[in-house]
């Protein structure tokens, strides 16, 4: 289970436990690509990818992780935390345009994350402002769960 630790004075404290999140390591691009590919290509998972490694991204990951603990319809949810923004180009090659927009619409100055359907479609762009809350994340997962008619 990934844990986020932060130095507080001389101590290092665990500030969050992420039960449903895959952290894509910023220092190992090959492993990150492998993890990302594996997640997106899974057919029985709806996912949210969060970009960045600042406090805003941490907060978003935490909220998304809470919502990923639910599995309505018995379908698993997962969060991937993409700390290395250089991975975005690779991510765009894995996902398809869908009713959330096209991969080209992802703008790191505006969006802190995206949700992806079981069929690899881009279902929503999660805005950085206002800061996303658990309801925003639930909505993003939900959009990724709508069945295309």
């Amino acid at each position, binding site marked *: 289970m990934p844990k986020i630790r932060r130095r507080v004075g001389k101590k290092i404290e665990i500030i969050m436990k992420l039960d449903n999140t895959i952290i894509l390591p910023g220092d190992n691009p090959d492993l990150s690509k492998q993890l990302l590919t594996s997640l997106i290509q899974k057919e*029985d998972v709806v996912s949210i990818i969060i970009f960045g490694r600042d406090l805003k991204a941490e907060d978003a990951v935490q909220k998304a992780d*809470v*919502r990923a*603990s*639910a*599995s*309505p*319809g*018995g*379908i698993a949810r997962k969060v991937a935390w993409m700390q290395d923004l250089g991975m975005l180009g690779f991510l765009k090659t894995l996902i398809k345009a869908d009713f959330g927009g096209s991969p080209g619409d992802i703008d790191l100055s505006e969006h802190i994350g995206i949700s992806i359907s*079981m069929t690899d479609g881009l279902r929503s762009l999660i805005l950085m402002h*206002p800061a996303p*809350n*658990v*309801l*925003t*994340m*639930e*909505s993003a997962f*939900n*959009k990724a*769960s*709508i*069945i295309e008619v």
Partner: protein
Amino acid sequence: MRNYKLHLLLVCSLYCTSSAYAQSIFSIKEVTEGGTGYDVKIKTDTCKNGSVKTKYPNIDINSSLEIKLNKDSIKVRAGSFAGNNKSIPQEQMYIISQVLVKRADLIEKINIDSKARFEDRVKALGKVAANMQPVYDFILALPPETPLQIKAIEAFSIPGNESYIAFFNVLQDEIDRIKIEYKDAVEANKIYFRLGAFINETPVHLDGFDIYKEGEFYRVPRFATTIGQDEKDKFDKYKEIAEKANTDAGKVLNQMVKDALTQYANSLKEMVKARLSEPFLKFKIGIDTITNASADLKLKIQKAQADISQLESDIQHLIADAKNTDDPDYISKLKTGIYNLIQKVTTVKSSVEKTISEIKTSFSPSAWSAYNDFENAFNSGKDTLISIITQTKNFFETQIQSNLDITQNINESLLKLDNEVKKLPLENIPDETRLNLLTSAHRKEGDKLYLKAVVGKQPPGTETADEKTIDYIPIGLYQIALHSTINAVLLFVDNLSAEYPAKTQFQLDPSYSVLFKLGSRKHTAYNNFFEIGAGLNMATLDFNNDNTPEIGVGVVVSTFKDYLQVGVGRNMTIDQYYWFLGIRLPFLGVDLTGAAKNGGADK
């Protein structure tokens, strides 16, 4: 014209992407005579161009309706009417209540067995997602400090599927809170509810909602067993046409078309004559007034005078054109003439205005008065002319609609609830009611049933009540189950006989078709225009030109409400095959025979 509009509508409908059921206070079930039940729902389609099209449902003309009322929704709308609509918009209340209605089902789907088949789980998830998204969207759109949003965030901070239970509880609390608010507002304003039903414009009885008596039992016959007098008359007419046409087909058909158009032109002429004199007179008075106002003004507007003279001449020409109904381009010339006239009047007005603006400092009171008279006359005349153009257009549309027996939807405001419809306090609204069409009123295919719900208030001390319509549903009445018609049809018969070859490819012959058809609950255009039927055709033929009728029997398929038919048959007298095209008249609104319009054919 309406047909073109329909085609346009059909083309547009191909581009309508998303469908939804409209919000209604009713939950209606149609129960057929055989006891089968069908949901009656209004559907809205959102097209790619953003326009929303509403599709009204159709039901069987001999069925009955079980109408359940969503009292919560009525109370919310009543509360909104009472003036308390600040807490939450009605539409969003509806979204919440729709989710809560499905709460049990959604929770079951959320917690579906994880060992269930993957496809079933995906389906369950999809259903949950589709139902929940509107609620999420609207809560997220609320200001962040809104209690509902804060509570929803609290609920979703709970891990796992338990969060959904908490979220549903938040929604339920919200609904309960608002209901109390609305109840208080409704009680304070003495709000009442009324529900009325109409077949076309005739009020009909709804148990518990009015004191009308039930109508006499009347079942619209499903199967035609006799030939109506209308159809017999048509058959005779077709026989006459066929005899003439077989002598000189081209000439006769030309004459038929000419007669039909003359009939329309004459009707139009009467209408134009009755309405045109008024605006012409107003223009004339306006022009005379301003030109005779004063010597000074007359001098200054000499330039405009030339235009005014031309205008007078144009008016005379237009009047002449309006009378010349023999002109083959009568209608288009008249329309162009009226538009040109408006344009010229506008030019003259500008010219006069320009002149006046140059000299108005020296205007005498009489000149101002003359100018005002002209302006008033101009505006009044222009409005009347535009009204004539609109009426001309409507005139043709009405002719076509009436010839196809199409009943148009009646505007809600024209259907008034009489005193026989009870004013019910909101707490006394029955949960449901029933409307049996068999004991409602006389009906024919294509008629409409209307349900109109209003809320009203009559504050103490006031004489008149203030009412607002909160729901209005037109429902088409059609023969949906298998039914049959017997129609007279004019056949264009292609004789395939080698023994008795025809001089021309087609011979015209009168006939009757017995057609079996099914109606559509979803597609009104199908019922009104395209309805397809199949059955038998019996024709009187004369292949051997001995002036003794031979009997032909064939199989036939029909479309466009039986107006176009095609089939194959066998001349039983001389044992020869033929194929045929058949038409009914008036064909697409044009009464080629010049016969009286069919006012109520047996269906």
